[in-house]
């Protein structure tokens, strides 16, 4: 029980980080980035590659992988997503990002084979004891990393001028454009940021789970569930739902059976949506768009 709680909060914060990227992208651009899952895996493979071939430590490698993923995000946004417009924009964005996801999945399968790998370091298997439970160091370090990055992100959003223009775009894009915000630029950079966080999320995920390219399906379904539950486009929602859901999953796993723990995820989603169709932190919209 205690173990499940601690583990849930630690792992949940990493999911919250990845989901924040996803919800940011949706909120600003109305794009549902189904490729978020494969970007996480791509981030994990980047860390894996750097460690395997250059002996670069996982955490030090983030200094390379985070900017790399940021650039990947900007390129993808410029090449494909910036072209989408019209009434089916969001639906098309799902398909485009799914197609991108398939291409990356194919490339990763060829480059790294379909065999599962896991990121290992000297500290991945060591644990320390808290409240009588053993916590592996990597979980704790992943948690710290997520907290640092989330704090950075929130600082940027709430304390800088650029962050203010992102939040304005989150609230209302056309209004933001009217007050002179370069929505196009904000969109591109937001997509970059949304993808950049997957480098960190992917590294921690890869160090705590065995993965291959198809693991991305499982990841994306959880991340999407988290942002829908939190309310699509809501930053606070992504944070709270991310931690709550993973904790709940771990609790169900500990109390009932690990087999059904993922199920709890979706059951909660269905129940919450039956009462609050807009999600926990979503704004009630009079208009069904």
């Amino acid at each position: 029980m205690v173990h499940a709680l601690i583990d849930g909060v630690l792992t949940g914060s990493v999911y919250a980080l990845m989901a924040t990227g996803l919800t940011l992208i949706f909120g600003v651009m109305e794009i549902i980035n189904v490729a978020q899952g494969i970007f996480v895996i791509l981030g994990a493979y980047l860390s894996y590659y750097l460690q395997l071939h250059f002996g670069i430590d996982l955490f030090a490698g983030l200094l390379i992988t985070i900017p790399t993923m940021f650039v990947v995000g900007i390129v993808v946004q410029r090449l494909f997503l910036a072209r989408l417009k019209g009434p089916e924009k969001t639906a098309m964005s799902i398909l485009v990002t799914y197609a991108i996801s398939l291409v990356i999945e194919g490339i990763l399968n060829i480059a790294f084979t379909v065999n599962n790998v896991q990121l290992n370091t000297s500290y991945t298997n060591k644990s320390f004891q808290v409240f009588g439970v053993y916590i592996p160091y990597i979980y704790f370090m992943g948690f710290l990393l997520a907290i640092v990055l989330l704090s950075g992100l929130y600082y940027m959003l709430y304390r800088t001028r650029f962050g203010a223009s992102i939040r304005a775009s989150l609230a209302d894009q056309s209004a933001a454009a009217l007050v002179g915000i370069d929505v196009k630029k904000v969109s591109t950079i937001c997509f970059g940021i949304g993808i950049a966080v997957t480098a960190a999320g992917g590294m921690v995920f890869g160090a705590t789970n065995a993965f291959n390219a198809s693991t991305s399906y499982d990841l994306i379904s959880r991340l999407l569930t988290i942002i829908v539950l939190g309310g699509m486009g809501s930053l606070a929602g992504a944070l709270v739902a991310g931690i709550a859901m993973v904790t709940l999953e771990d609790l169900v796993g500990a109390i009932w059976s690990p087999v059904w723990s993922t199920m709890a995820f979706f059951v909660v989603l269905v129940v919450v949506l039956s009462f609050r169709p807009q999600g926990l932190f979503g704004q009630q919209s009079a208009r069904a768009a």
Partner: protein
Amino acid sequence: MSTTSTSIFSRPANWIWALCGVLALTFPFYETDPAYQQIGVYTLIFVACATSWNMFSGYSGYVNLGAAVSYGTGAYTLSIIAVHTHPNNLPGSASEFWLIPLAGLAAMVVAVPIGLIALRVRRHTFVVITIAIFFTFQLIAINASFTGGTGGLSLPYIPWAASYFDVPFYYLALAMSIFAIILSALVRRSRFGLQLLAIRDDEDRAMGLGVEVGKVKLTGYVMSAFTIGMAGGLFALLQGQIYPQFVFDPLFDISIALMCFFGGFGTLVGPVLGAAVLESSQQYLTVQYSNGSLYLILFGGLFLFVILFMPQGIVVFIRQKAKQRSDQQIAAAAAAGSNA
């Protein structure tokens, strides 16, 4: 997108339909290789599913990325009944085919509660919820005991010779496709279909003009589950063995959507064309190269190309080109006339 009624063979499109019909009807006669006949069956299964999917998602704009829920429900319903009615490995027979409509009905029954929950939310959220519900179903199929878990279910073996084994399946799949196309055409021409299209364009406005949007959406969603469920049942019979990850396959969900967008989202012909081109080429590539990863890259790449350069799909793209040409001809004729 207006509908004008004209006599059947006055438009070239109808000739193409007729030609395709004849080619499809005679396919098992000129293509006798079982491997290629099977490609024909799969292609038709996807024609039926894509057409049926489009009848709801294409018309209403509510993109359902959980079509595999209906497909898998159909496949499992048929398999479970078949297994229970054939204890001790009794051989199967053509009478199993009567279970296919039942598979479709089961998919419809399952679609009702899903629709009631998923259709309450905004369009974007709907997509995501369908994905989430899909994974829930996959999870149940993997973990429940009545589905046989990851080991799947083995259906009664139908003792037919390999040389003509696929032929009955082929004609059933063809019948299903024709059924789906006719149903989709009827819906498009009904008041109900008009209401779905109105919902696609502006749901709130439609509501303000008396359209009972909730009931209309639910009806469309449940109707589209029927053919997809039947197709799942047929697939199970054809395979003789089903596994959770094959009938509850995320690639199935996305393939159907890709086929419709590729051909023309919300059009009648688009899904047929999209499914025919994409599924047959996929099956062909698999038979020829058996490299799934390469296929993913090609499939994804092709789709990106289509959506970025022909965002409304091939059918609309061709129509627009044809219209531009005829407009130019009319303009040229008018210019010539005014000069004379």
